[in-house]
C-alpha cells in the first residue's frame, strides 16, 4: 500500500494500466470506484507516480510488449495479466477474461500480499487458468494461473455477499438529482457549480438536448463522495461556451450522474423485494459502461425479478446492480411498483421460468467459451 494518494483519508492502492484501451480502463476505474473497501485508484496515463500493482491486457496489440517492458523496468511491482489464452503466457500471473469483480479483487489482493519467494520462482508448468474453471460445469475452486514453482495458491471465489439489512439507500428525488430532473423537464438551462471553488462542472442545456461536462466520470464520482452539498445550481445563461468541455446527450448524462450518485446504493424508489422489469434495453454501446450491465439488462428484460432475487440468481455484486438500476431508472426504463404503499412481497414465479429456460450444461459450457472469446477480442 502507499500513502502517495489518499481518498477520504485512507491510503489508496495505485494501479497502472498496461495495454488497456480507454474503454477497458473506464471499466476498471468503475470497478475500483465500486469497491470502497479496497480503495484502489487507477492512475491516469500522465500520472508518473509509481503504482502498487499493474494490470496488463496481453491481448491488445502492444499489450505483451508493454507488459514485458514494464516488468523488466519494475521487477518489484506485481503485475496481473489479463488474457483469453492464459496458457500462452506461463511467465505471467494471469486472470482469464472476461474479468469479473469477484475474480479481479481476490487476484489483486493475492498479488499484493508480500510473497517474494513464490513470485520469483521459475516457471515449471502453467496452472489451471481461471477461465477454464469458470466455464467448466464440474470445477468449483478457482485459481489464478501463476508462474510459480509451488502449487498455485487457490483463490476461493468470492461469491458476492448480500445482507438485506446492510443495504445503503439514496433518494434520487431529493437534492441535486431532483433539481437536475426538474430543470430538464422544464427545459431550463442550468449550470452545476462546485461552491468551494466556483468551478462549473456541468452545463445542462435541455433545449439543445445536451450537457457540456468539464469533469470526467471519475472526477465526478470523487466530487460526489466529498459531499453533494458542495454542488449548487446556477442559471445556465450566466455561463459562456467553453472549449475545454466534452458534450454529452441528456440521456448519457442522466445515466452517468445517477450511477455516480447511487455509488453502490439502492434507490429509495425501487423496492428490494418486488419485481422490477426492464421495459427496453439501454443503448449500452453509447452509454458509460457499467459493470455487468449487459448481463443485468438481459436478465431483467427477460422476466421481472426483484433486486434481491437478481443478486442471488446472477451472483452479481449488489453495488453493480444498484448502480445499473439507478441509471436505468433515470432513463425511465424500469417498471416496478414504487416502495410507498406496498406491504408484502409477492411471489416471483417468472424467474423460476427463466431458470427453466436455461440451456443444457453442455451448451452453457460452449456459450461460456464463446463469451470469453468475444470479451477478449
Amino acid at each position, binding site marked *: 500500500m502507499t500513502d502517495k494518494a489518499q481518498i477520504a483519508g485512507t491510503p489508496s492502492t495505485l494501479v497502472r494500466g498496461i495495454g488497456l484501451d480507454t474503454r477497458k480502463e473506464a471499466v476498471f476505474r468503475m470497478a475500483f470506484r465500486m469497491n470502497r473497501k479496497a480503495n484502489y485508484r487507477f492512475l491516469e496515463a500522465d500520472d508518473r507516480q509509481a503504482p502498487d500493482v499493474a494490470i496488463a491486457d496481453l491481448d491488445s496489440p502492444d499489450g505483451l510488449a508493454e507488459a514485458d517492458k514494464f516488468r523488466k523496468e519494475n521487477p518489484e511491482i506485481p503485475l496481473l495479466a489479463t488474457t483469453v*489464452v492464459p496458457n500462452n503466457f506461463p511467465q505471467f500471473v494471469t486472470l482469464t477474461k472476461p474479468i469479473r469483480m469477484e475474480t479481479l479483487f481476490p487476484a489483486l489482493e493475492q498479488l499484493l500480499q508480500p510473497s517474494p519467494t513464490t513470485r520469483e520462482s521459475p516457471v515449471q508448468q502453467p496452472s489451471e487458468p481461471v477461465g477454464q474453471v469458470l466455464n467448466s460445469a464440474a470445477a468449483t475452486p478457482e485459481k489464478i494461473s501463476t508462474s510459480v514453482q509451488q502449487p498455485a495458491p487457490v483463490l476461493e471465489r468470492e461469491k458476492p455477499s448480500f445482507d438485506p439489512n446492510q443495504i445503503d439507500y439514496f433518494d434520487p428525488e431529493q437534492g441535486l438529482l431532483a433539481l437536475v430532473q426538474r430543470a430538464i423537464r422544464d427545459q431550463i438551462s442550468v449550470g452545476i457549480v462546485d461552491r468551494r471553488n466556483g468551478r462549473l462542472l456541468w452545463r445542462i442545456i435541455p433545449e439543445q438536448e445536451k450537457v457540456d461536462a468539464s469533469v470526467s466520470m471519475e472526477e465526478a464520482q470523487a466530487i460526489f463522495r466529498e459531499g453533494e452539498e458542495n454542488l449548487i445550481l446556477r442559471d445556465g445563461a450566466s455561463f459562456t461556451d467553453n472549449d475545454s468541455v466534452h458534450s454529452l446527450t441528456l440521456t448519457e448524462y442522466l445515466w452517468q450522474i445517477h450511477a455516480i450518485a447511487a455509488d453502490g446504493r439502492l434507490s429509495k424508489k425501487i423496492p428490494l423485494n418486488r419485481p422490477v422489469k426492464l421495459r427496453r434495453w439501454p*443503448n*449500452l454501446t453509447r452509454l458509460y459502461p457499467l459493470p455487468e450491465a*449487459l448481463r443485468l439488462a438481459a436478465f431483467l428484460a427477460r422476466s421481472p425479478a426483484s433486486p434481491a432475487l437478481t443478486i442471488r440468481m446472477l451472483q452479481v455484486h449488489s453495488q453493480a446492480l444498484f448502480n445499473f438500476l439507478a441509471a436505468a431508472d433515470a432513463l425511465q426504463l424500469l417498471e416496478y411498483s414504487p416502495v410507498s404503499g406496498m406491504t408484502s412481497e409477492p411471489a416471483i414465479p417468472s424467474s423460476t421460468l427463466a431458470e427453466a429456460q436455461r440451456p443444457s450444461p453442455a451448451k452453457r459450457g460452449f456459450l461460456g467459451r464463446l463469451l470469453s472469446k*468475444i*470479451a477478449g477480442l
Partner: protein
Amino acid sequence: MREDNKIVFTGPVGAGKTSAISAISDVPIISTDARASDMTINRKGHTTVAMDYGILHLGDKSKVHLYGTPGQERFDFMWDILTTGGLGLILMLDNTRPNPQKDMHFFLHAFKDYIADVPVVLGISKTDLNSRPDTADYAKMLAEVGQDLHMLNPVPPIFEVDGRNKEDVKNLVMALLFSIDPGLGMLP
C-alpha cells in the same frame, strides 16, 4: 459442421453486416462482394450478392460460424439455408434509409420462424449521419412491427453500432449470448 454454432447477420444493403463480421472473425471473411447493380447501385458500390462467412475459433476445435445474408431482398430464398439451427440473429438497420420501420418489418418477418427459437439483437448503424429514429423510437416501432411475431426475446437489445467498430460488434454478440442465458460465466 455443427449447425447450431451459427450466428446470422442480416439487414438491408449497406447496414454494415460485412464490416461487423470482419471485425470479429478470426479469419479473413469469405465474401462474395461484387459490383452492385440495379437496386443497390445507388447505396453502395459493392455489395454482398450471396453471403459472407467468418469464423470464431474457440480453441478446442469448436468454432462459431458467422454468416451474413445478402442485403438484397431478391435473395431471400437463401436465408432458409442460413437459418437452420443457430445461436441467434443480429439484425443491422441503416438509419439513413428512407423507411427503417419497413426494413425492420421486412427482415423480422423474413426470419419469423427463426426468431421464435433464437434471440435477436438489433444494431442501428449510421446514427452519426442521421440521429433519428433513435433506439427508443425503434423500440416503439418494434411494438407495432412485432405484434404478430412470436419472438423468443420480445424485448431485444437495440444498440447504436458502427459495424467497423469491434467494441460495438462485441457488445452486439455478447448481448445476444446473455439473451440466451444471462447466467453465462457464473459458477455453477
